[in-house]
């Protein structure tokens, strides 16, 4: 009873306050000057108004002394009356929502005014902004989106221009995190601005009054009426949908597909891929990219991605700016990124922005969540392989927050349970940790500190031990200038370490190691001139690479091998870039950019020189020359030109074309078909030239209702592709260039994609036809591969179909399914047998002349959410997943053994049976938190 009364009291009080404030507002907006104000001196006039109302005047003292207030209109509103009064003095009055009245003069005069005035002006304008934001907040907090509330941006009559630029941030009301890929739409004109990675948007409009609709996939749609007086800032916040019924899978934004200028671009949102079934219940956002058109792999369990015909080392993996040089856990079965902490990631495979460089095929840009600036929260989960825990919360409320996410395995324990001695004698551990701190110093400055750590410790039968470590940190400073220009600066450090202990054969037991250090400074300035037509981007980045190719050491008493030092490598790669996005007309956008790459391979280094005109072999070494520390051994420089154009045929259909050039200065030393766990990175040097590539693409995009449709085609050429001589052995080779040949890679393809982005049933289906062929031909016969004939790359799979479907039975229960088909991968078969010693040896066909059987897989998963009560301590989710439902034994490889004179083929399947897994995830708070 007591409680009820208190509640009623509270309610009453609430209504009273609401009513009072409404009343106040009504009074204020109704205020008009009557005749009693006429013919007063300015100072008396101000006094009277301030006494009678809540209005407060701001103006430069003495500027309006002895000015007599005269007006004739009584029916127009107060601000108009004021401006009529001030007209004769060429002054303007601006009223903000806090009822501050700022009197300013013609801009020309303003600029010469003393400091005192500018202070007042600045202050009042800031107040004005705050006030507006407050209003928007109030407005958006109301659940009825049709409440008619207004916001004003800028000052009335601030300038004589007809246009104004409005910019600001769209943030989540729940945790203050930026809303990325949100859309601010002007209903009257149809103009649309999408928010970037920081939730920033910018719009250019004719002055006037508009209705804005602000939306994003994860938030409730909001409407707001905006009076645009002049340039200004408008920050908006959106409330996250409590129950996201119509969850969509890929959030390359609805409006982006057609109106965006990007090609070959996909953005995956972790929140949206909850339903996609994956191996052993590990949510692995990176592996989802294999379901997108143009992304392939050699096979299950291999770590590399092959994007549009490129090799696995031609992709740059970035996690909050930190490059990750080994993106695999457990030798490739999982990716090294814990999806819990990932907000989203983007793949650029065609028109790559100029601020990215250094890889030929793609950029995988992973964005980690920002900590919640309002509340503490925690979540975690258990899958058959890992346990996960993530904690986040504010450091200073509304200003700064932290996020820590840890994932670790307990697979050792499971390995012990297996009735197989070899497995019982093996160990496998991995873990990864993400720390993210961000500080919003004020509206214009943001600093974030991020670190990423991962390791793998693998012990196979106590004979092969591998340890991998990725460690990195980035410090970023984002500076927003004049509400629209942006300066992003970061300092990045990444380190990849790997060591190996091999005791398979005691006589040649060895340890080996590798280290790569990446230190980078980058700065990128985005300049938006005072109209919507241009966005200009300039900046540079500079990377210092320090590689230690390791030292192979004998291990144990019985090892007879000699220590071999593979040496150290050092280089600086710098890119200076500029790009210009030009909205030529409302329907046509042209982006042009240049990135100038400079690469210096530095000492201390003992450079080896070989006889030209003949194949590089250790015996053809002519000279070695020692270069002192930091002396340039070899330098390369070249520009990358990048163009893209978008033409809107209708508001929902567009045509796009792009041309892209790239350069790559380091590569993986890999002689295996798939990327092997022991592969090391190598820098381009005086013998091995950097790789370069160019790509031409064309696409048609359409969106209608819940559907999106796109066709993209591309033609790609890569020069100086690093390939290896037949029988190349890099393990004990401290002259790897003698095993390397450089050739060409030609690829082309057509990618079709249809998406249904919302509704109970959503998902996508895509079909890709693509080819990728390698040519290593030279006039020197020994420098040929495959006799100088073109051969398909290891991942050349012409036909690929991916279907991803989600069906939402209810708010709590959803079913999803993947269907994956592709042509088998190319493989080399024996076409004869011959005898050597007493051994029967296969005679192989030309390289990759045959194919493995076609690949086909169906996965299904069922997700059951805990109850949807809004107020509860924790929310749990059950996730049952079946990978490879049909149990098809897809071939990873086909290999041959000669048994009693007969060549017998064997098919190796990695996941040759349905794999069931059950995962339980728990987090504090309700479903939506």
């Amino acid at each position, binding site marked *: 009873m007591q409680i009820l009364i208190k509640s009623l009291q509270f309610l009453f009080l609430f209504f009273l306050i609401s009513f009072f404030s409404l009343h106040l507002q009504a009074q204020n907006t109704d205020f008009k000057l009557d005749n009693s104000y006429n013919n007063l001196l300015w100072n008396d006039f101000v006094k009277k108004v301030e006494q009678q109302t809540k209005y407060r005047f701001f103006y430069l003292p003495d500027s309006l002394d002895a000015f007599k207030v005269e007006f004739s209109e009584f029916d127009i509103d107060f601000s108009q009356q004021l401006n009529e009064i001030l007209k004769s003095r060429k002054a303007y009055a601006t009223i903000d929502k806090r009822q501050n009245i700022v009197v300013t003069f013609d801009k020309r005069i303003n600029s010469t005014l003393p400091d005192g005035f500018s202070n007042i002006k600045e202050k009042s304008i800031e107040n004005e902004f705050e006030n507006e934001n407050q209003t928007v907040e109030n407005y958006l907090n109301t659940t009825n989106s049709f409440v008619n509330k207004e916001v004003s941006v800028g000052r009335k009559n601030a300038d004589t221009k007809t246009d104004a630029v409005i910019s600001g941030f769209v943030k989540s009301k729940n945790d203050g995190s930026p809303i990325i890929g949100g859309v601010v739409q002007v209903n009257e004109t149809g103009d649309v601005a999408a928010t970037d990675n920081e939730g920033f948007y910018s719009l250019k409009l004719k002055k006037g009054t508009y209705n804005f609709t602000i939306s994003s996939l994860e938030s409730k749609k909001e409407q707001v009426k905006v009076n645009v007086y002049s340039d200004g800032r408008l920050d908006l916040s959106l409330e996250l949908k409590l129950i996201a019924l119509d969850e969509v899978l890929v959030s390359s934004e609805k409006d982006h597909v057609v109106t965006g200028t990007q090609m070959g671009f996909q953005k995956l949102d972790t929140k949206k891929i909850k339903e996609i079934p994956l191996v052993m219940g590990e949510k692995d956002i990176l592996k989802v990219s294999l379901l997108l058109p143009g992304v392939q792999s050699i096979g299950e369990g291999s770590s590399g991605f092959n994007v549009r015909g490129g090799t696995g080392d031609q992709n740059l993996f970035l996690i909050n700016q930190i490059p990750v040089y080994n993106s695999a856990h457990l030798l490739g079965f999982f990716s090294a990124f814990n999806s819990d902490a990932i907000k989203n990631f983007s793949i650029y495979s065609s028109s790559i922005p100029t601020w990215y460089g250094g890889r030929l095929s793609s950029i995988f840009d992973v964005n980690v969540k920002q900590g919640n600036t309002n509340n503490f929260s925690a979540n975690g989960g258990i899958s058959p392989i890992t346990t996960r825990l993530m904690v986040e919360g504010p450091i200073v409320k509304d200003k700064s927050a932290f996020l820590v996410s840890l994932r670790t395995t307990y697979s050792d324990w499971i390995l012990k349970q297996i009735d197989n001695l070899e497995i019982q004698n093996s160990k496998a551990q991995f873990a990864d940790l993400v720390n993210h701190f961000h500080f919003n110093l004020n509206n214009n400055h943001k600093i974030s500190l991020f670190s990423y750590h991962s390791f793998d410790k693998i012990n196979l039968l106590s004979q092969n031990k591998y340890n991998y470590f990725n460690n990195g940190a980035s410090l970023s400073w984002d500076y927003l200038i004049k509400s629209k220009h942006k300066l992003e600066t970061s300092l990045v450090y990444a380190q990849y370490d790997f060591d190996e202990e091999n005791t398979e054969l005691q006589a040649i037991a060895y340890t080996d190691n590798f280290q790569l250090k990446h230190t980078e400074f980058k700065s990128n300035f985005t300049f938006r001139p005072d109209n919507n037509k241009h966005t200009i981007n300039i900046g540079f980045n500079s990377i210092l690479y320090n590689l230690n190719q390791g030292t192979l050491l004998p291990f144990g008493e019985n090892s007879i091998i000699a220590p071999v030092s593979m040496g150290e490598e050092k280089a600086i790669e710098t890119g200076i870039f500029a790009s210009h996005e030009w909205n030529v007309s409302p329907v046509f956008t042209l982006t042009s950019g240049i990135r100038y790459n400079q690469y210096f391979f530095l000492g201390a280094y003992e450079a080896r020189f070989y006889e030209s005109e003949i194949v590089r072999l250790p015996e053809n070494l002519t000279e070695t020359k020692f270069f002192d520390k930091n002396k340039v051994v070899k330098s390369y420089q070249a520009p990358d030109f990048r163009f893209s154009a978008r033409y809107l045929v209708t508001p929902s259909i567009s045509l796009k074309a792009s041309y892209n050039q790239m350069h790559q200065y380091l590569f993986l030393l890999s002689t295996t078909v798939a990327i092997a766990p022991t592969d090391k990175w190598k820098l381009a040097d005086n013998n091995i030239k950097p790789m370069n590539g160019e790509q031409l693409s064309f696409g048609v995009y359409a969106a209608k209702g819940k559907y999106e449709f796109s066709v993209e085609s591309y033609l790609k050429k890569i020069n100086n592709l690093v390939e290896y001589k037949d029988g190349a052995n890099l393990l004990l080779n401290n002259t790897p260039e003698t095993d390397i040949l450089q050739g060409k890679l030609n690829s082309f393809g057509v990618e079709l994609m249809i998406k249904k982005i919302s509704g109970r049933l959503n998902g996508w289906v895509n079909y890709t036809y693509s080819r990728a062929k390698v040519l290593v031909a030279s006039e020197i016969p020994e420098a040929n591969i495959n006799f100088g004939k073109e051969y398909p790359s290891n991942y050349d799979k012409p036909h690929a179909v991916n279907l991803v479907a989600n069906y939402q039975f209810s708010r709590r229960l959803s079913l999803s399914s993947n269907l994956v088909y592709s042509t088998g991968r190319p493989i080399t078969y024996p076409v004869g047998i011959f005898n050597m010693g007493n051994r029967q040896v296969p005679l*192989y066909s030309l390289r990759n002349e045959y194919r493995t059987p076609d690949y086909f897989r169906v996965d299904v998963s069922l997700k059951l959410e805990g109850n949807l009560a809004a107020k509860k301590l924790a929310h749990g989710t059950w996730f049952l997943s079946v990978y490879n439902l049909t149990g098809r034994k897809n071939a990873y490889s086909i290999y041959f053994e000669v048994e009693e004179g007969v060549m017998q083929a064997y098919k190796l399947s990695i996941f040759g049976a349905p794999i069931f897994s059950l995962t339980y995830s728990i987090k504090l708070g309700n479903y939506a938190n």
Partner: protein
Amino acid sequence: MRTKILLYFAVLFISSSCIEKYFPTIDEYKQIIVIEGFLTNLEGPYQVKVSETVDVNNPVPKPITNAEVILKDEFGNFEILNHRKDGLYYTQAGGFGGEIGKKYQLEVKVNGKTYLSSMETMPEPVGIDSIYYQIEENIDNTIVTEGLQFYLDTEPFESKDKYFLWIPEETYQYTSDLGLKQIMYDYTVIITVNQSNTVCWQTDTLPDVLTLAANELSEPVARKIPLNFVGTESKRLSVRYSLLINQMTIDKKAYEFWNTIRLQAVESGSLYPRQPYQIRGNMKCVENPEEIVLGYFTVAGVAKKRIYVGRPNLIFEYPICTPDVQALKDIYKHPRPSFPQYIGYNEVTGDKGLAAQRCFYCEMEGGTMLKPDFWED
């Protein structure tokens, strides 16, 4: 081995990964000439084998018997080899002899085409210091087998630019499982033989190709080089075992060839297979240099060593015949038994019983009852 380990690892706790037989359609058969010859500093005769590659789908050996095979040295001396059988050509005993430091060439003429090797210099041989063994376990999946792992130490050599090829040859003595009591040719014709267990010797060149590049060694001596493993799952160690090692010192090119031969067998089935390719040797067709010729003319300085091992004190697990007492009793009830039937003792119980013929005659297991000349008891 690595292959398998990686694979098992892939299996982890899902035993879903699997290997199964597969029958790809290979419609292509490359009929290519294969020439394999050895010339050493040891006394001849030397052997050259000329054949064609075998069809994968129809693996019938294809020896070339009508070739003209000539061994030449750098001074113009030569010897024409005689075809003995199955495409194997030999020099005369006491004929052409290899000498260290001299250059040699192999010429093979077939059907109007001439195949010529590059000039190969005979390297100086490195001696074998010792061959020895340890009792070790070999793990294959869940099966642990005990046995002997053989090792080799070379003698020290002066410089590290040495390359080795070892082709082990084993000879083992073994006995038939049972002594033969009687042979029953009919229900009525039963001959008493009373033959004790027969003794045989079997010699095999092992399929292991072992190679080593000395420039990878810390010191100019190779120690504890693993040779073959002999398990207790077969009869090989049951009586007396002998291992003969031909330690061939070869040049770098020959090493690269043989090492590739070795690797192609080891790598198959790996999670991280290397790209297989056509292995090229040192033979070329004179008329058409583009023509693919397989095989190698290996010129090696050879050192030999043999060791003997008696039956080790291990538990043997090979299957052994036991006389079937009941079958012998039942044979009279059997409507039409096949004859002859062989009757042996059960050594423990002394009972007589039937057993298969191969249980009494060791030759039927592959060996010969002729004691090899070199054999030391």
